[in-house]
């Protein structure tokens, strides 16, 4: 498969949009990648290989009808040209059988963008040696992924957007025989053996805190410093039943009480959708651009919601380039004034939470979330690390965690890039601080 996916995108966009009749409008989104994966366990290779893939999503509007379809592309120019044309034809035949779409919102945006980031990645034949070699002696588990990732969008109003990046990610954990582990990652565009060795060395130092006996906590309320890595799990809840306009209007959002003034969050808490992070494109599947920065929560109150064109049509509010799922992308949480170096002192006696695991709603309307502590979470007394805790379940309303119980936010923030690979390697990420919470509820 070609590495020049932009050329392939231009060709299928020309075919798909060029096939449209005068009374039809369309938008396409395109995704492609050339990836190498190596999964490892115990410092040894579990599975490895490569994946090449490209697919196209086409949305058509004709009269009051709307239809979308997704199509895998073979990479062969002639074959894909035929597939796209046939798919447009099938859609055209099906659309008269659909009801009218009352909130049809064909894009009118006609902008263009082209962002390309090249990288220096490992030769595939050297991946096992150069990833596993520096971790020799560790019970080292996780995945290495690398390669080119592309996203494109175009529409019949004239929009043309392209984003491609070559990245790598070592997403790993290192384990002690007692079952405790340190989780870390090394990600970027320019692989450096020296930088990677530093990361592994830091992991080895962190493991030293975990060799002592685990401390079992009783259920109760504890002061807790939640690192940026742990907070990344919470950030998911800003999109899932989150700050999308449709969810707020239709009863699915957890933040209806916040919008209606029945609940509040801390003046210390705020976050924005901020594409200046440079980890994902600002265009959506319909070729519409979101503003580079959009405040969502400011000073503890909702400043804006994310709104797609369809919701905008339904409720008569302005759209702001959101995708149809109205999730928040590229989250940048406001910094505070606590120095990370002072985190243990600020805890005093409580828990240093390195990672959370498997969060879900206990009560959506109360914005109450449950989850587990995971990996290297530590018990701290009088500002000193005592040892690792046995994993605890917690259950807390975000109106508490990010509201009355939010005591401090760190000055430092960390860019955490997306590591998900469901169906395809994801792009995106978040810029997050750590937070200090007074009275996090541990339940089991």
């Amino acid at each position, binding site marked *: 498969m070609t590495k020049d996916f932009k050329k392939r995108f231009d060709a299928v966009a020309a075919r798909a949009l060029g096939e449209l009749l005068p009374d039809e409008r369309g938008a396409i989104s395109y995704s492609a990648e050339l990836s190498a994966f190596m999964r490892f366990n115990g410092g040894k290779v579990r599975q490895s290989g490569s*994946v090449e893939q490209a697919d196209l999503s086409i949305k058509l509007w004709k009269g009051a009808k709307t239809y979308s379809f997704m*199509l895998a592309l073979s990479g062969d120019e002639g074959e894909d040209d035929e597939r796209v044309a046939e798919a447009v034809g099938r859609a055209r035949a099906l659309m008269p059988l659909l009801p009218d779409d009352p909130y049809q919102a064909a894009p009118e945006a006609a902008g263009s963008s082209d962002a390309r980031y090249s990288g220096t990645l490992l030769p595939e034949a050297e991946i096992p040696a150069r990833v596993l070699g520096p971790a020799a002696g560790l019970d080292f588990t996780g995945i290495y992924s690398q390669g080119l990732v592309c996203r494109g969008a175009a529409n019949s109003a004239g929009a043309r957007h392209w984003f491609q990046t070559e990245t790598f990610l070592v997403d790993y954990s290192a384990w002690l025989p007692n079952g405790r582990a340190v989780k870390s990652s090394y990600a970027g565009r320019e692989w450096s053996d020296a930088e990677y060795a530093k990361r592994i060395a830091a992991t080895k130092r962190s493991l030293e805190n975990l060799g002592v006996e685990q401390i079992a906590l009783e259920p109760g309320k504890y002061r807790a410093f939640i690192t940026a890595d742990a907070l990344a799990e919470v950030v998911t809840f800003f999109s899932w039943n989150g700050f999308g306009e449709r969810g707020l209007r239709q*009863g699915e959002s957890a933040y209806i009480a916040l919008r209606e003034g029945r609940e509040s969050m801390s003046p210390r808490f705020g976050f924005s959708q901020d594409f200046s992070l440079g980890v994902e494109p600002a265009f959506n599947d319909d070729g519409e651009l979101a503003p580079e920065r959009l405040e969502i929560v400011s000073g503890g109150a909702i400043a804006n919601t994310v709104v797609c064109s369809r919701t905008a049509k339904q409720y008569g509010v302005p759209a702001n380039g959101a995708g149809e799922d109205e999730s928040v992308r590229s989250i940048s949480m406001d910094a505070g004034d606590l120095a990370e170096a002072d985190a243990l002192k600020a805890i005093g006696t409580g828990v240093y939470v390195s990672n959370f695991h498997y969060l879900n709603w206990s009560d959506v309307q109360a914005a109450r979330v449950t989850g587990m502590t995971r990996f290297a979470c530590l018990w701290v007394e009088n500002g000193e690390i005592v040892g690792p805790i046995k994993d605890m379940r917690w259950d807390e309303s975000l109106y508490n965690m990010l509201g009355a119980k939010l005591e401090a936010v760190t000055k430092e923030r960390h860019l955490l890039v997306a590591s998900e690979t469901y169906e395809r390697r994801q792009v995106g990420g978040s810029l997050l601080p750590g937070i200090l919470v007074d009275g996090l509820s541990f339940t089991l």
Partner: protein
Amino acid sequence: MQNDIRRLLDAAASAAKEAAWVGLRRRRTSASYYMARDGAFDQAIGGLDDGVMVEVLYDGQFAYGATPDLSPEGVARAAASALVAAKAAAGKGVHRFDASVRPATRVSYRTPRARKAPIAPDGVFSFLIDVCDALKAGDEIIQTVSMVEIGRYDYEIVSTNGADVEQSLHYMGTSLQAVARRGDVVQLRTANGPRGLTRQGGWELFDAAGLMADARRVGAEAIELLGAETCPSDRRTLVLTPDQMMLQIHESVGHPLEIDRILGDERNYAGGSFVKLSDIGGFQYGSKLMNISYDPTVPGELASYGADEIGNLAEKRLLIENGTLVRALGSLESQARSGVPGVANQRASSWNRPPIDRMANLNLEPGETSLDSMIASIEKGVLMRTNRSWSIDDYRNKFQFGCEYGTLIEDGKLTRTVRDPNYRGVSSTFWRNLCAVGDASTFAAFGTPNCGKGEPNQVMFVGHASPVCAFADVEVFGGGK
């Protein structure tokens, strides 16, 4: 298609001549998705995906190359890439494999379907819009959603040692949802949870009369929940219906029994397991009433198939017998690594991901207690229906699950409805408190098409069937800040 894939196998084998074994796994997926919201069109989406994964075995190490390019040249490039990866990893692998973990199975399987001819989209939407009307049981309903998804997975597996597997799995899922609001109280009710009504079969699953009755009940119950008190917080007997049991089985039995988790493959992502290899054959997982089977042979259950995706023939196996763990969920690869018995469960989300240990259909066998006698035997309890939330630790021990709808049980009778019911516990303690298992009249099968696991990540469809069950001395609680 057979001739095509044989030709592609020849191309792959020629490009990877140094390989001891070469296999091809093609997967073609087609799906349609129709959704109405508030009595009007919301979405209509179609999809078509097709590609092949070439696997090679070199010096005891498997590696893969996946491509959507189904030309001989494209497959040859994927094979050459796989060989490079296998050579690079040879001698550095978790186990030295041989071709015995890729058996030369020859099998054909197709989902049994009573009605094969599709209903046209206008007919589907007409029904979905009517369903929204039925869901809107009153003015307090502020959102209604109805959805149908239909699809098929076509697999072909061939290999240089003679495997020849062809299967076509057809499925349909229906989702019904109503959101109701009264003042500050908002409640969501669905038919059997998010995409829980997903099963294998044909258009006979498009049961208009049954779904319409479900829609009327779901809408009425959403409004009923607005006036219900919140679930009490205490310890009592918990009764779970099959649309919550599927989640309970999935999270606290299925995942901890996956041998790849026990071997540590998942520790960096989904997690490990509280179960040890030495537990298999003697560990008291639950009470004597607990009998759990891996059964990919149940017609209509979502994860039924003839062979897994390394070509291992699928057969029913009992995993937990009278509460004792006797077998776990491990593929031929996991069995070779661990030395314990397993099942045919190495499956992949599509052609672009390597197969790993999965659950398939994991079912709790029916017992002998009628629902009436079960309720009558409980002095203080709560019955919970329909999963809405799930969270469990990375060893699959400490869990907290939430349901949509609860009913108190007082002195042997179902009494008041309660909202926001949740419960928490520790897996094996919970299962050892299994105190009643419903008879066949309470048994129902559901499907979960969105089980996430693996690095790279994979989402998988699994099936779970269960009777109504009762568990003693469970911590339950309600909602609120």
